[in-house]
């Protein structure tokens, strides 16, 4: 199915929104406007915007710490995302979780824990429930290549394969798991090869090519919705900044970084749209201005939101027992 111009413009909006929000969050952290840390995904936008664009609200995504772009594209309003980073009362988690553990029920984003690969397991369980309920929802489970070394990820893929669940497993291969290079984490170049062992297809694609990540995901989503089972998509990409904002990323070379910056997915996608006449300079400027306003509004919302009441420490531990 060819990608329509409307879809391309939608993807363009989200690619830029995600990039701008992410860069802004880094600054806010460095300015000390929120504490803890911040996990930037600048450079990896296409690996999340492509898969999440166009999902239904009742589809579910499984995220780790770096999936800010998935969360935004799936429909979490950025004012709540900011409130989450700022740990305020208006954060959906009411200040309980940790920066970058975004959750937003209306958009099917389950608040994650920190355990790597765990959300893949949880959303695979959602897909089992949909099979029992005879529903056609799908889930997309995101991990980095580092998480694929963890046994629980394999348990989820194995189970999804056995029961042909409506799952799309996305591996964002950004070459580094915190400070550990990929070659010390996994003994294969292409992680999509893993899919064969679980009885479903796997593909490796250029994770910095927005149109490719979108088209490949769409095909996998359609397949899952039809009841034909999971797909594993490995997307080759790179994170520009440290593991989080407190990591100077001294373990990698400047040359490696510069080479990947040349493959920046956002301007690359923009060039294609300009060349095809789908957007022009005026469209670009008005999009960026709109985004700027949205971000300002979101930050204001978050900073005005009160801190949680100290008495809420013991709220939401248990539901009533009886």
């Amino acid at each position, binding site marked *: 199915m060819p990608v329509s111009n409307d879809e391309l413009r939608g993807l363009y909006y989200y690619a830029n929104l995600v990039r701008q929000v992410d860069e802004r969050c880094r600054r806010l952290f460095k300015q000390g406007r929120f504490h803890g840390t911040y996990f930037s995904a600048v450079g990896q936008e296409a690996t999340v915007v492509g898969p999440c664009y166009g999902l239904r609200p009742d589809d579910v995504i499984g995220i780790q710490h770096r999936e800010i772009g998935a969360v935004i594209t799936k429909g979490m309003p950025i004012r709540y995302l900011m409130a989450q980073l700022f740990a305020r009362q208006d954060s959906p988690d009411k200040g309980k*979780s940790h920066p970058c553990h975004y*959750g937003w029920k209306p958009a099917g984003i389950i*608040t994650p824990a920190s355990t790597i690969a765990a959300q893949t397991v*949880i959303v695979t*369980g959602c897909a089992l*429930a949909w099979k029992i309920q005879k529903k056609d929802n799908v889930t997309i489970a995101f991990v980095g290549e580092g998480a694929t070394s963890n046994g629980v990820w394999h348990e989820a893929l194995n189970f999804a394969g056995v029961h042909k669940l409506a799952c799309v497993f996305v591996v964002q291969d950004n070459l580094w798991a915190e400070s550990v290079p990929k070659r010390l984490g996994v003994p294969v170049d292409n992680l999509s090869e893993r899919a064969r062992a679980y009885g479903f297809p796997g593909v490796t694609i250029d994770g910095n090519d927005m149109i490719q990540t979108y088209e490949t995901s769409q095909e996998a989503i359609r397949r899952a919705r039809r009841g034909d089972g999971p797909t594993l998509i490995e997307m080759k990409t790179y994170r520009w900044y440290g593991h989080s904002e407190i990591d100077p990323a001294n373990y990698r070379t400047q040359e490696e970084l510069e080479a990947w910056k040349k493959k920046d997915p956002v301007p690359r996608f923009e060039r294609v749209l300009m060349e095809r006449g789908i957007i022009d300079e005026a469209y670009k400027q008005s999009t960026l201005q709109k985004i700027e306003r949205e971000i300002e509004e979101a930050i204001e919302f978050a900073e005005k939101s009160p801190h949680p009441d100290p008495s809420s420490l013991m709220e939401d531990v248990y*539901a009533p027992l009886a």
Partner: protein
Amino acid sequence: MKTMEPTTAPPAAAPDVKTMTLIEAITQGLHEEMERDERIFLIGEDIASYGGVFKATRGLYEKFGPLRVIDSPISENFLVQGMVGAAIVGLIPSPEIQFDDFISLAVDGIVEHAAKMRYRSGGMFTCPMVIRCCCGAAVGGGLFHSQFNASWFMHAPGLVVVAPSNPYDAKGLLKSAFRGQNPVLYYEHKRLYRTVKGPVPQHDYTVPLGKASVVREGSHVTVVSYALMLQRSLEAAEKLAAEGIEVEVIDLRTLAPYDKETILASVEKTARAVVVYESSRTMGVGAEIGAMIAEDGFSFLDAPVRRVSPPDAPQEPFAPVLADQYLPDANRIAQAIRDTVAY
């Protein structure tokens, strides 16, 4: 002094009451709850047409079919953690852990995900699920088929931990577990499966979570216990009655969050307490109950709170002569009670 049935049990003579084993009560509870609520489904190893290694899920696959009674791969992490997702999108999953000895593979799912889901999401997501887990020593299972690790999970706020000692409570607690919004870890002691029988109503009833029961009244000393050790404590109390020692026996039933009020009210009356539990001694159920009594009931006490438990051996060993040394029997429990009363 009188011996009582569990305080919540109806008289055995009622027309719709049947005498059942603990495992029969559980199986019946599962049948009834799955009939009542079609959101409930079971998943576990060997639970479908095989009916479970102890036959607790007998007949359910035939009645409810392959979408509601699912044989799982050997995948303890997925079994629990995956079901958190199934609960979030509206079902009520009941995963079965075949032996508590393997629950360590599912701890992340239980502690980080099921127990914390409500808190970590500010109440956006709840995780109603009933994790059934077969546990316990005294069946010759050796180191890796005898464990009862409940105390690990009493340290996980957000999780309800239940361990019935008799068929009536087993069915009633199971029903409450399926009807609430909390994740429940429901322990089934395999030694009790077929050795304890009791009256089980055939009409719908529940036993409340978080409430202990006074299963025997007495004025000289309070014994707090649960599951198999509760049954052995009752035996000890019976022996001691002949010696003129009146033991009040409390069945915790729910281990977390547990019922402090019932324990403290009893200790206020008896001034003495013994905690009898099945796990290695240090940092077990006795540590918490003992500390709680010392903190909140110190002025009631005429004697130190005593713990009766297996020693800090890793687990009940396999050789029968060693295994015999492991779990407290009624004699050991009775002696600790005598010492406490004589203090």
